[in-house]
């Protein structure tokens, strides 16, 4: 009597087809069906089915879409007429939530620009998600447009602008001013209008103008894919960790290290200035990266 095979062996045998039940079943009862006649072109019937669906859809689509569009317009207009009057003082949005932002905003967050106070201190979790939306978009465009690293492809996409004099002189004057203005908008985010997002976009536009005027070669040594990843890592990690620290302290009632400082001074408003700087860097790199990816498939 052969020894009882262990479960492991029996499983392996079951899997490795030591015995194949189908042979017994198929064998005696009825001869195995002859191999199915291979259909000449198996793509054809399924294609007809989808094509026929598609044609019906194609004809019905514009009427359906116009109907849906009209319905939403009427539906929304009816809803809008019921809204509180525009510009009035006693509307529901002018409630205790907005009151505290305005009355205590400067003392609690230290930011003179209350909008910066709201997005970077009161409702900071939204903006934490926000800067990661931009990172997601950059990675998605990287997946799509990044070409494989082979030197054979020259910069086929570079602008064939004959580096003419007008653009280069204009750029040599404008780029420093744009980048300076962008830095001003970032660093004064908590004092005047602006902040990380708009300042970063302005600096990004400055970099793009530089790349258009003087070509990518000069920028490539410093701003390539490797340095991008490190910059994004540093800025976003700083952002996430500092915000995690302030959320943790806030939730457990601990006092954070950052003090709002005296409002109006550049180094005030606790964490808002460094956060604006970090967001500004990420936005500038993303904008330049998107431009370079669209332009020539590599950063």
């Amino acid at each position, binding site marked *: 009597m052969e020894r009882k095979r262990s479960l492991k062996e029996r499983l392996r045998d079951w899997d490795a087809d030591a015995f194949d039940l189908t042979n017994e079943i198929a064998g005696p009862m009825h001869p195995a069906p002859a191999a199915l006649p291979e259909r000449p072109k198996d793509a054809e019937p399924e294609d007809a089915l989808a094509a026929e669906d598609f044609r019906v859809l194609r004809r019905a689509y514009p009427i359906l879409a116009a109907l849906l569009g009209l319905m939403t317009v009427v539906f929304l207009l009816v*809803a809008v007429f019921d809204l509180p009057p525009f510009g009035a003082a006693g509307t529901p949005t002018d409630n205790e939530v907005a009151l505290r932002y305005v009355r205590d905003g400067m003392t609690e967050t230290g930011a003179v620009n209350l909008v910066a106070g709201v997005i970077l201190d009161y409702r900071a979790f939204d903006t934490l998600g926000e800067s990661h939306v931009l990172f997601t978009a950059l990675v998605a465009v990287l997946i799509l447009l990044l070409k494989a690293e082979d030197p054979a492809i020259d910069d086929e996409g570079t602008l064939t602008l004959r580096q003419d004099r007008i653009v280069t002189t204009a750029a040599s004057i404008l780029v420093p001013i744009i980048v300076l203005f962008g830095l001003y908008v970032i660093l004064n985010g908590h004092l005047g209008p602006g902040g990380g997002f708009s300042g970063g976009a302005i600096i990004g536009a400055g970099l793009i103008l530089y790349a258009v005027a003087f070509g990518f070669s000069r920028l490539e040594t410093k701003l390539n894919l490797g340095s991008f990843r490190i910059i994004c890592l540093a800025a976003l990690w700083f952002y996430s960790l500092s915000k995690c620290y302030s959320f943790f302290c806030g939730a457990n009632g601990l006092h954070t290290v950052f003090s709002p400082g005296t409002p109006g001074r550049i180094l005030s408003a606790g964490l808002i200035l460094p956060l604006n700087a970090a967001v500004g860097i990420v936005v500038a790199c993303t904008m330049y990266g998107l431009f370079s990816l669209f332009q020539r498939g590599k950063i």
Partner: protein
Amino acid sequence: MIAFFVNFPLFSIVLCLLCAVLCALLKGKAARIVSLSLCGVVAVLAFCVLVYGLQTGAATEYPMGHYPHPWGNELRFGIAEPLVALVFAVVMLLCLIGGKQQLDVDLEPGKRNLYYVMCDLVLVSLLALAYTNDVFTGYVFIEICTIASCGLLMIRQIGRTTLAATRYMIFSLIGSGLFLLGVILLYGVTGQLLMPSLKAAIAALWEGGQYRTALLSAMTLMTVGLAIKSGLFPFHLWMPDTYAYSTPASAGILSGLVSKGYSFLLIKLVFGVFGTDVFYGSGVSNVLYVFGALGIIVGSISAAREKDVFRMIAFSSAAQIGYLYFGIGLTPALGMLAAIFHLLTHAVTKPLLFLAAGQLGEAAGGRLRHTWRGAAHRNRTAGLMFSLGAFSMIGIPLTMGFVSKYRFALAAFERPTLLVVTLIVLAVSTVLNAMYFMRVIIGIYTPVPERRTRMTLREQRPFAVSSLLLALLNLSAGVAAQPLVLLLERGLSLL
């Protein structure tokens, strides 16, 4: 020690964000290890939060920052949220492990780590959607989820997936545009963004009869927006392309988790923002009920007509989403309980089906049903797992699908006026499910004389491990469903 668990939702969200940014820097293999360990850690953290919720027995509101209720952002977690987060993390882990074989083939060598960046971002948005207590934060993380799941889709660089990604993106953005407009109208009328204060303001307005049309339209817009994004009946046309042509791991994550994240947010909105009496009193739930029923029937019929097995599974997923909204629209008590139970069932079963179908497709060498004849003999484990998943979809006893269908039947009795319609819809869809799934199972088990190489267990170890665990999850919940149902009942009461 248990008291410290209250910080774990914040830690899990921030950890995911850190790992997502880190994975962009690492090489493919290291990024995979980081992502898999991240899913594991998030699962453990979610389990701890579940223990904390059970111990305190109440929903805790965790202020994100120094400012309480209507001023700062908040996270809210009772029992249902950590349970759903736990299931999401575990299923994502198993999907990534199970789909390894196809991932190695489909991903370009240079962009492998970018795939895992997208997986981490999908996970963080699912966690945020489960835990958030603020409507605008929900919108921001819906956008992250849209772009990241689109990234998961287009990683397989064949023309068909790029087209599917574009159509998926456009449909999703219509949905989030309507959701955004709903949030704005709600803010305009109540002045609040945090769910608890929104609920109080809406209840007061609903009694006072003020701004009623604006409230109704905001509620409809948000519901329709989320329904479009998770693929309810008239907006399920993007589903077959999206799920059929992507790698099985992505298809599992997209169909099993992403659409469930949106539906769970809708369930949170129904309980936490609109309030059951406003939502069910205003007739919006009947709209969901009708579209859910239509979705079940149309989804099942078009699945039966489909010859390509992957598209068939995608259409059956549209039918299952129809079930979800069918339950939500039925009744606030038992109907919602059946819907959230079905949410977990589908989150566990559908990835199992897609992974097994991926393996069977390779064993059979084709996508069409008739080319799959005898495929189960070439790949035994995949055949077994596929049939188990199919049994759960049909609702054979001992599987989780049976329990969820049973819960739907119970819920039907709670609403006697619609009893007959509900039972007919359930019966018809079960028959249709049985028809098109059994057709495939019979096909893959009919013996085909000619010998093909056989895929043994050792060659596909990652798939075997993950599908076995998914099957165990399914069967264990199917056999011992009562504790899970009680848990969900308590969770819903705390939502």
